[in-house]
């Protein structure tokens, strides 16, 4: 399941909902991404996350579908926020539930790696020197490339 929203989310209740009433899930791996105050050598007062409504959801659904093709997953949840965020705010939650932990871990990392290079979001940071668009990172491209099938 994927959600793109302006509002904050509660990781605890989201994770609870993923496994509630189920007895076939052996493990849940999750990742929560947060806004850091220090970024690229500057202190940021906040950021605005722009996205492409429609395409964002479509891309996240495609990424979820790809993860489900690659690993036997009992549940998948991706929540990604847009709009104005402050340091310490949650940006993204990715959670995967599976019978075995290897699948849950691999799929969770795959989802965040692919999301970072494929989901149409753009970060505009507010620094003391004014607003600045975040550059895409080579390290993110390399992280996503780990999952390219040969």
């Amino acid at each position: 399941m994927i959600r793109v929203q302006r509002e904050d989310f509660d990781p605890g209740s989201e994770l609870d909902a993923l496994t509630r009433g189920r007895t076939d899930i052996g493990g849940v791996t999750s990742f929560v991404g947060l806004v850091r105050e220090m970024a690229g050598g500057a202190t940021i007062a906040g950021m605005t996350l722009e996205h492409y409504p429609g395409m964002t959801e479509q891309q996240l659904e495609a990424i979820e579908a790809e993860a489900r093709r690659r690993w036997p997953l009992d549940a998948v949840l991706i929540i990604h926020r847009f709009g104005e965020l402050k340091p310490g705010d949650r940006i993204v939650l990715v959670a995967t539930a599976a019978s075995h932990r290897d699948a849950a871990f691999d799929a969770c990392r795959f989802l965040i790696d692919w999301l970072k290079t494929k989901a149409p979001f753009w970060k505009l940071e507010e620094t003391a020197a004014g607003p600045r668009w975040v550059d895409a990172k080579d390290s993110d491209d390399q992280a996503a490339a780990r999952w390219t099938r040969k």
Partner: protein
Amino acid sequence: MKLLYFAWLRQKIGVAEENLDLPAEIATVAQLVDWLKARGPRYADALGNTKLVRVAVNREYVGYDHRLKPGDEVALFPPVTGG
């Protein structure tokens, strides 16, 4: 044709969205980008380095050789930085 721009591409071009009538000879994304660059300095600046310009047609990523159809929604934007 409906065109969408995001992030610094939107800021440089100065609009988020526009509907343009394309000349009939424009068949591919590459031809569209070249035609846009010739429209004025804002476009030329925004689209100057095509390594930094991603293209989606009808909300799917496409390459520069992708063939356009009437009614397509074409989005141009920088490499994404979410997550």
